[in-house]
């Protein structure tokens, strides 16, 4: 959020007032939050009790306390501890803007959910005025020159503690967000989270964190997986959110596989969903479902392998034109293959060809996955917490995602990864330097397809049915969008992109009508304004900004820094 800043003379004149006004704002927000916000107790999870703040009110209090901490860093007891390092004033500006948006959102939500402004209780107005004061105050608090936070040398355990705090925040945030039943609460929570993240960016905490993340890569990775692993335990046996979570995982795993093709090798594959589909069809056909056309059911690991290999074979076929075509033409070829896959699955119903796929009806009634004696359909109790059907699939999918990420990152950081970058940079020069251009391209297709095939076999069992209409072009476009949105060639970015693309439509059902509209618009806007994605890989940033000399120098100094 960047608002036009006030003229310097104005700021200088009123600088002294900023701090007390801000402090008053904080106080009002907190006091208001302990009062009733809404007359109607049915909406937004009951915000009508005096003395006992509801969920959304607690969020307001947390935001206010954060603002208080920042205020005390500007002037007060915390100044000597943190004031030199954190850009408290700038962070305060960002946080106060978001808090104001949050309060306005609350007022709008109450007004629209109940009938009219009368439903807003005094507490709501008090907190709103508080947010307004904080906003006004933060505008006139002068900014200062600071030392670079990334230069700080804090002990290793503190860095790891920082990672732990952030990860715990993500875990509780995700659990809290998923638990919101109504769309308004969900959106308001997103505003709150946006405010916290914006404040982290503006204070410089995020820069520090990204440096810590590169230093403590292993700890971060482990922590991230621990968070993902513990997520089902926060759900208390509720399967509703776990079903969303598993579909997010399948989507993320597939997107990560596509990320190898698009993000690393730089080949645009518009028919990638076909690989997921072929894996799913293999698993369905080998499941002894009543509708399956093959009556053989090998152990699931064999099924996975077969699914992966079938997909990889298709990948080799789809990739083979790369010998002769590249760029846009290749994208169209892959799109054509994707459509052929869908039409074939649709047509191979016994009337228009051999009966292999049961045509448009697909193969329903796929039995639950069973590994040894463990049936994935049964709930299990671990540590007193019930884990339902979706939680079972969730853990397997998490393993798969972990495996795909491992493949991705290790290939990226190897001879092969360097070859891919070289091809992306200058194919002719790479060839003249002895890089096996065709071999590497087809390898990307095959590996990507294999991984999607693996994901497909799990998807078939998790869904319990396969049908051709699950594997349309739009799904390929979605996968691509997850990568573009998140950041091509990155792991964190693609995970974020995939999560956002799956989660938002699930949680914002009232929005479903406009879902695709926004999706299309997002793609266009991203390419226009931030083609490297939310989380940009350095390399992609450079590629998308060929003319930006400053960026290149900045990235270079980072590289030199890291090499030391």
């Amino acid at each position: 959020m960047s608002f036009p800043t006030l003229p310097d003379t104005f700021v200088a004149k009123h600088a002294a007032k900023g701090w007390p006004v801000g402090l008053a704002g904080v106080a009002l927000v907190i006091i208001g939050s302990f009062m009733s916000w809404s007359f109607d107790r049915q909406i937004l999870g009951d915000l009508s009790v005096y003395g006992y703040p509801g969920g959304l009110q607690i969020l307001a209090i947390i935001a206010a306390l954060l603002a208080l901490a920042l205020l005390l860093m500007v002037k007060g007891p915390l100044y000597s501890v943190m004031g030199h390092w954190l850009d408290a004033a700038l962070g305060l500006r960002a946080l106060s803007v978001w808090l104001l948006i949050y309060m306005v959102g609350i007022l709008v939500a109450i007004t629209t959910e109940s009938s009219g402004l009368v439903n807003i209780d005094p507490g709501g107005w008090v907190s709103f005025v508080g947010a307004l004061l904080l906003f006004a105050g933060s505008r006139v608090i002068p900014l200062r020159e600071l030392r670079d936070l990334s230069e700080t040398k804090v002990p290793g355990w503190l860095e790891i503690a920082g990672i732990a705090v952030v990860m715990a925040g993500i875990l509780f945030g995700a659990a809290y967000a998923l638990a919101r039943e109504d769309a308004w609460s969900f959106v308001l929570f997103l505003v709150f989270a946006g405010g916290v993240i914006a404040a982290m960016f503006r204070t410089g905490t995020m820069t520090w964190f990204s440096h810590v993340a590169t230093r403590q890569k292993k700890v971060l990775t482990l922590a991230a997986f621990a968070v993902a692993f513990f997520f089902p335990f926060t759900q208390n046996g509720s399967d509703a959110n776990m079903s969303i979570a598993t579909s997010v995982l399948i989507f993320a795993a597939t997107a990560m596989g596509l990320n190898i093709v698009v993000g690393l090798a730089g080949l645009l594959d518009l028919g990638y969903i076909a690989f997921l589909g072929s894996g799913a069809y293999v698993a369905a056909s080998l499941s002894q479902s009543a509708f399956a056309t093959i009556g053989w059911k090998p152990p699931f690991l064999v099924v996975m392998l077969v699914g992966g290999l079938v997909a990889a074979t298709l990948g080799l076929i789809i990739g083979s034109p790369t010998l002769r075509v590249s760029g846009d033409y290749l994208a169209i070829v892959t799109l054509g293959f994707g459509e052929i896959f869908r039409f074939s699955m649709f047509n191979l119903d016994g009337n228009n060809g051999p009966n292999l796929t049961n045509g448009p009806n697909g193969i329903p009634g796929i039995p639950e996955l069973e590994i040894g004696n463990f049936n994935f359909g049964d709930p299990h109790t671990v540590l007193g917490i019930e884990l339902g059907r979706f939680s079972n699939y969730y853990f397997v999918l998490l393993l798969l995602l972990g495996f795909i990420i491992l493949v991705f990152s290790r290939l990226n950081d190897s001879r092969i990864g360097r070859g891919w970058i070289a091809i992306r940079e200058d194919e002719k020069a790479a060839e003249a330097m002895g890089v096996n251009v065709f071999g590497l391209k087809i390898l990307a297709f095959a590996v990507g397809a294999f991984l999607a095939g693996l994901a497909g076999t799990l998807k078939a069992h998790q869904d319990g049915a396969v049908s051709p209409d699950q594997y349309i072009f739009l799904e390929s476009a979605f996968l691509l969008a997850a990568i573009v949105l998140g950041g091509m060639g990155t792991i964190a970015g693609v995970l974020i992109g995939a999560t956002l693309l799956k989660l938002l439509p699930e949680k914002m059902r009232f929005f479903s009508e406009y879902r695709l509209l926004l999706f299309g618009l997002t793609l266009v806007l991203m390419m226009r304004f931030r083609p490297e994605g939310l989380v940009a890989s350095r390399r992609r940033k450079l590629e998308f900004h060929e003319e930006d000399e400053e960026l290149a120098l900045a990235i270079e100094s980072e590289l030199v820094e890291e090499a030391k």
Partner: protein
Amino acid sequence: MDQFLQQLVNGLTLGSLYALIAVGYTVVYGIVQLINFAHGEVFMIGAFGALSTYLLFFDGQTGVWILPIMIIGAMIAAVGTAVLMERVAYRPLRNAPRLAPLITAIGISVFLQELVRVFYDRIPFADFPSAKQRIPFPQLDVVSGTAVQIGDVTVQRSAIFTIGALVVCAILLWYFINRTRLGRGMLAVSQDPDTARLMGINVDRIIVVAFALGAVLAAIAGVSQGLQNNNIDFKMGFIAGLKAFTAAVLGGIGNIQGAVVGGLVLGLVESMATQYVPGQFGGGTWKDVWAFVILILVLVFRPQGLLGARVVDRA
């Protein structure tokens, strides 16, 4: 023999439709080396433009004199869309890596489809039906109605309109490109944009003209499609666009005559395949598959197309 002639007529009709759309791909590609993936949507919006014109001003009437006005309405909608997308989405990306405009095109394509689907019946001051289902396309005198019988061959009136439209458009197009200043400017830019710019040609304007030109023909194709199928829907642009792109590649992308020839050949192949491919893999259900197979084979083995084209190394 009659069957053959019948399929010939069907193929030419289908092919004319593809050809009209394919010109849009080829003109834009020839000038900015961009595959305007969203061109199929321009075709769809053309059809809706025609329908809207009819519903707004002539609802219930059937006179054939309405047709030209509908076509003008279609053109306004299509050209407006195409020019806007060029200006807003593509122009800022002209020097971006190749991935960017392609992804943008997918975005525009989805966006336009959804725009029509969600908002068509919510346009203020107009009482349009919802576009969530297929919408019946107006039937007019002369161009729709009972088919013409020539021997044992049935020729739909709309087919005559489509083929006729292609012939007229092809002649006008030839004249425009070879005999007008603007057309020659287009040729110059497609040969060498930098030199053309130095020679004082306004390249930005030429690019807009290319998009508009493609949109004009796509609009006519949209009307033809509506007359032939008796209905239109928001999804009609996707497959038609892909087929037309195939046609453009088949003829040699960047080559305008090629687009016309490619369209006709593709249409003929498709209808002949429906008739003559034996066994279970024949018939209508597989015809789209055959079209894509042709697309892939052409891209792989003869990317310069049947008539040949300047093939730029698209690395």
